[in-house]
């Protein structure tokens, strides 16, 4: 039996939480107080406005992630918690990148955006804003593909996740 194993794995935890002021700080406070990692956290109300859906990307050994889900479940305002990484699921992240788009770079930027199925959503004489969604890896490779010197800003949403097929997280 191995217990305190150190093999740290990435986990995507999805939760349904009461849409109340303070609920977010309870979750983020829990992570900082107990020293758990947060790679990203996204939250917004669901179709039922009394509830919010949150996706947290964290990493830790199995026993730490087990504690994370238990501690999240223990928060009074948390309705449901699932570790999406336990089975098939989809992850998407949105990124807005503002790039320098002048001279020959202007065409090159457009071409790259097309290859990555990005959209140019703001155009000036000298800049583009490119909108891109996909997995974290796809966004990373887009950022890697363009000349770092041309990036003016990147804004990423953190990932949203959902289980595949009939697996539904609902109250």
């Amino acid at each position, binding site marked *: 039996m191995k*217990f*305190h194993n150190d093999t740290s794995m990435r986990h995507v935890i999805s939760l349904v939480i009461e849409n109340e*002021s*303070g609920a977010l*700080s*309870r979750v983020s406070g829990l992570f900082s107080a107990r020293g758990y990692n947060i790679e990203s956290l996204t939250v917004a109300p669901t179709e039922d406005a009394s509830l919010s859906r949150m996706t947290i990307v964290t990493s830790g050994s199995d026993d730490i992630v087990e504690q994370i889900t238990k*501690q999240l479940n*223990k928060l*009074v305002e*948390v309705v449901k918690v699932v570790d999406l990484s336990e089975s098939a699921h989809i992850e998407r992240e949105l990124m807005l990148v503002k790039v320098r788009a002048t001279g020959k770079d202007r065409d090159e930027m457009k071409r790259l955006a097309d290859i990555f199925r990005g959209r140019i959503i703001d155009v000036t004489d000298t800049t583009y804003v490119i909108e891109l969604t996909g997995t974290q890896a796809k966004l990373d490779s887009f950022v890697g593909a363009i000349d770092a010197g041309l990036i003016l800003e990147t804004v990423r949403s953190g990932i949203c996740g959902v289980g595949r097929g009939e697996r539904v997280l609902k109250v």
Partner: protein
Amino acid sequence: MVLTGAEIVIRCLQEEKVDYLFGYPGGAVLYIYDELFKQDKVRHVLVRHEQAAIHAADGYARSTDKVGVALVTSGPGATNAVTGIATAYCDSIPMVVISGQVPTAAIGQDAFQEVDTVGITRPCVKHNFLVRDVRDIARTIKKAFFLARTGRPGPVLVDIPKDITAQKCEFDYPQSVSIRSYNPVLKGHQGQIKKALQLLLEAKRPMIYTGGGVVLGDASDKLATLVRKLGFPCTNTLMGLGGYPATDRQYVGMLGMHGTYEANMGMHYCDVLLAVGARFDDRVIGSPAHFASEPRKIIHIDIDPSSISKRVKVDVPIVGDVGEVLGEMLAALDATTEKPDQESLAGWWKQIEEWRRRDCLKFNQSDSGLIKPQYVIQKLWEVTGGDAFVTSDVGQHQMWAAQYYKFDKPRRWVNSGGLGTMGFGLPAAMGVQLAHPGSPVACVTGEASIQMNIQELSTCKQFRLPIKVVMLNNRYLGMVRQWQEIFHGNRYSESYMDALPDFARLAEAYGHVGIRVDQPGDVEGALREAFKRKSELVFLDIQVDQTENVYPMVQGGKGLTDMILSAEDL
């Protein structure tokens, strides 16, 4: 019926049958105090410091099965309460704290006496609320009591801005409340219970280790029945004392850092461990790696899933209320014809008796002229017939009280285990005494701890609380000094208590009886005298041996079997 917010607060407390409210007034709670004044169902106990209000509510809750209730004002009132709230949180004590807040419009304006009380207390409450609408007061208070007392209990804070206590609305106290996101599991999983029973019946060297959960869940009768039916040894944590009768032969004493030799050895070398409402604290099992070095199967009953497999991996987790689960186990045990393995059990008991013969708690009163602190507690136990409520502060005296006062009943031992809050003992005793008028209540304390809330002697006078303060005066921050002696080469950095007051006269100045004791032969007489004075607070300043240490001792981070048994082991 249309009432003001303040009236609603008081009506809610009446509906919850709150008899004592511990508190301290201030600007933000003036409307609430005005309503308190106009009624006599909820009795207010005016403390001398908000920390004491919380500890008193805490002592009240620990010694009964009720929720303790406190009221404080905004800003400094709330921050003074934080240590008390954290103390209750660490030991899972049911409590509702109502705090005043600056008016809604002033929130966020750096107003006078404004602090973010909900933010400050968030990490040390089970839950908290900021009420933003007078129409929410009743439902919020109902929820607060519900959350405080159900599941794993804990303190719940309700912060109410002043303007809301003046506004009016229709009052209707909800008879029940449900929270969709909060559904503690009470009944144990049948399959798991069966597995657990099988393991217990096959055990060769079983041990039953129980904690605060048995006391909080009022399950000590069921525990005793199970322990006796199985014939297994039982040990209690510091928080679990009284959960199993200490004078019973199957009891092997407290375990952990200052636990008995037999309890720690039994815990380490057992092959099947049944953990009941206990959370494998670091002061209980020492190093988890060392604990895991001996193979054993662990069954763990706890109402909080996050207590299970947190520090020690468990083989058979059972989430549920101790009372429910032990009841189900007893029923399953009655239904089977199988019996524990008597032959192995006899061998195991033989081993335990051998460990017990080390008599690790022995001490020698006679060979010095100094009063041994252990002797004082032993006499306290004798003089009170083992039937007093005993609160304590934090330090060596706390450990001696835990080791030498044999608690046969639950809720008699009231101490701060998780946070280890000096200053807890006296105010906690106030809550205990109010909950049990006429019962003997002793506060075992040290000359350092008592000074952290000594102002409460004034509250005791006002409310005629005949507490017996048993102060083991060693003129040292004894527990700190002990660690410095063992781990820091006898460098007693700032652990000496200088410029001590004459405590007996100080008690007299507050209007109580003070007695100083410095001869071993006077200890018993002084204790008898104190408990004879049924209507007076008696403060015993007992001058004890300054150099005494608490043994056995497992050094922090070491294994349970690595015990220092006496000064000779150093």
